[in-house]
């Protein structure tokens, strides 16, 4: 296979690197959603602790 002309080869190389970066971003997004779930649960627990404190 003769070396692809630069612009066409560039397309593929760029594609590969975009896939790599994209994968990491998807991963960060998943972790972000997990973080927000933790945040929500912590709020709930805080309320629970307050209620427990007020002895209700």
């Amino acid at each position, binding site marked *: *296979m003769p*070396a*692809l002309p*630069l612009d066409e*080869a*560039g397309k*593929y*190389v760029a*594609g*590969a*690197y975009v*896939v*790599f970066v994209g*994968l*990491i971003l998807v*991963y960060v997004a998943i*972790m972000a959603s*997990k*973080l927000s*779930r*933790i945040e929500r*649960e*912590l709020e709930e*627990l805080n309320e*629970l*602790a307050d209620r*427990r404190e007020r002895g209700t």
Partner: protein
Amino acid sequence: MYGKGLRALSLATTVVLTAAFALVFFYAPNDADQGFVQKIFYIHVPMAIVALCGFIAGGVMAIAHLRTRAQKWDMRSYVAIHLSLILGVGVLLTGAIWAKASWGHWWVWNEPTLVSFLIIFLLYACYQPLRFSIEDPERQARYASVFAVVAGAFVPLNFLAVRLAQAYTHPRVLGTTGGNLPGDMRFTFLVALAGMVLLFVTLWKYEMASKHATMQLRALRRKLAGEEEPVRATGRTAAPAATLHARPDTH
């Protein structure tokens, strides 16, 4: 606990990765016959190597889990395999792109590393469904570890078998391991590999910190809520769940 070294690690990862990219595009010369397309090599192969090592690491941690029954080893093994699977998707995609660029179609059977990686990926794709379909958390952890050990042993075997099968039908078109690369390309490859390893370790610690936090949270909820409040059904997950007797703080 896991979050401790995270800041320094993520800094090191970004530095090394950006250095690697810079080297790839501005320092390493174009390959003689492959030309510019060969640049994909610097990302595809390190990802494959790190993913495979991640699978094997998952197997080793599974052995530790089976021996010590400590729940933290199951979590570590789960996260290692989970991450390797995500990297595996990257390996297959970049592999396909590389095949399209070099040989004109999206999948080639004459590249043994790519073929055996697909087989290993198909095997590990059963890891999550296997975990998800076992209810009792302790049995789930134990069965997942047995799977991880067996699949970990399979990784090198599979590579051997496919490489042998390929070697006798059509000789390898291009050596993809870093071994026979000229000096400057080899250096770039090693930097890229180091960057990928750092990335894996960082993400692993990151996810371990997050999972550990969730476990602490659930323990706190149990302490606060006691028995009266029904623990909000967290739904079934393939992820390792807290079990009473393995208190999260036992490290």
